[in-house]
């Protein structure tokens, strides 16, 4: 009988003592955290996609409160979300332009191979061997590192063709842009209707030799654009999305179908998904 009472007292005593010590400690060692951090974190999507440049939504919220970052850097937050965050901080809301990833190459399958690559199935690994196994130095290698890194499952691929971007899912976080060793992917404005599907800086003559679908720099798109939105920069066609109205004239003019209609591509992806 005695032993039961003793054990109850000892166990109860230790429990009580720890409780008291912890309660006192929580008072003494109380750390003041800014309640705004939690409020902002609740508005943020919590996807931890790192599109804002911070490793997690929590660190981004902390940095916003400290004044180290603008509230509009979240690629997932809608305009209302940005407004809410801004009102918590008491600053004026400015929304950033929504972007979407574009892969500027048809890649892999159609580009001729320089050598047989039998190593690790990863673009980053393959690009270490003389820049990859494709003859074109600027081509997509097609192992799909970007597909693996996308937190939203927006990229998909078949075989060794260049991956395709599902614009419905893509949030423009830029993880694929950062992982691509060949710098084939870039972020374009979401409202953009066209983008150039060739990443090559080579002269037209060389592209014609090594790639069936590369841009041969014939300049027909540039000459025929009614808005003057296209230009040649460093032997590469660039689209000025401020000027582009999406009339589709360049798509019609291009002899090699290098200029890609984003809405058409989206239809294709949706057809495949179904």
């Amino acid at each position: 009988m005695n032993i039961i009472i003793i054990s109850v007292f000892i166990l109860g005593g230790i429990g009580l003592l720890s409780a008291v010590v912890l309660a006192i400690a929580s008072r003494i060692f109380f750390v003041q955290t800014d309640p705004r951090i939690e409020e902002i974190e609740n508005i943020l999507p919590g996807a931890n996609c790192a599109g804002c440049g911070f490793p997690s939504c929590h660190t981004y919220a902390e940095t916003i409160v400290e004044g180290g970052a603008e509230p509009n850097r979240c690629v997932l937050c809608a305009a209302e979300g940005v407004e809410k965050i801004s009102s918590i901080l008491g600053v004026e809301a400015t929304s950033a332009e929504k972007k979407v990833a574009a892969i500027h190459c048809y890649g892999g399958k159609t580009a001729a191979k320089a050598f047989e690559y039998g190593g690790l199935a990863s673009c980053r690994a393959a690009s270490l061997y003389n820049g990859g196994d494709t003859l074109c130095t600027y081509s997509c290698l097609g192992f799909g590192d970007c597909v693996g890194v996308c937190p939203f499952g927006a990229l998909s691929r078949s075989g060794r063709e260049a991956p395709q971007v599902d614009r419905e899912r893509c949030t423009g976080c830029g993880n694929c842009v950062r992982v691509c060793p060949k710098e084939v992917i870039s972020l374009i404005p979401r409202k953009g209707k066209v983008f150039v599907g060739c990443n090559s800086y080579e002269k037209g003559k060389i592209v014609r030799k090594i790639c069936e679908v590369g841009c041969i720099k014939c300049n027909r798109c540039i000459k025929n654009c009614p808005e003057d939105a296209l230009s040649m920069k460093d032997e590469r066609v660039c689209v000025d999305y401020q000027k582009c109205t999406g009339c589709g004239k360049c798509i019609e003019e291009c002899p090699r179908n290098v200029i890609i209609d984003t809405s058409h591509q989206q239809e294709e992806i949706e057809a495949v998904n179904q």
Partner: protein
Amino acid sequence: MEKLVVIILSVVLVNNFILVRFLGLCPFLGVSREIKSSVSMGVAVIFVMTLASICTWFIQYYLLVPYKVEFLQTIVFILVIAALVQFVEMVIQKVSPVLQKALGIYLPLITTNCAVLGVCILNIREDYNLLETIVHGFGAGLGFTLAIVLMAGIRERISLGKVPQSMQGFPISFIIACLMALSFFGFQGFFSHS
């Protein structure tokens, strides 16, 4: 002195907590994806194991033995370790935010870890004095760190390699753990006691 060296070598290599005694397998598989986080986890374990060993040693010999209630050992130790880890976490949060960022999320994970409880109970079972207890606790943490960092190094390589689909993730990790345990089995019999 000689005994302390034997204790530390035996607990790191011969009786490694993870690979020979199979204690603390959950963090071993859970936090071994990257070397960086596994090192943080290891440091947190070393810290908690040493501290818990000291505390439970005092509890055992100044509370449980005098009142003849050694059968309460397990439950009292769990209680004390959990409270201790909570307390230490609060102190660290206040005193050193840098340390808190490094250990922060790992400390609560170890609160009710079997390896921590295991080291405390083994201290008592082996009749260690206070100094030996501290060395044993520290060594156990060291052995845990060694195992988890080795595992993380291998898993980082494996994540790049071609693994058959049905073996990806945990299955291949268990096989790695199994092979590591087999190789550590080679240390058996180095020291006759402990």
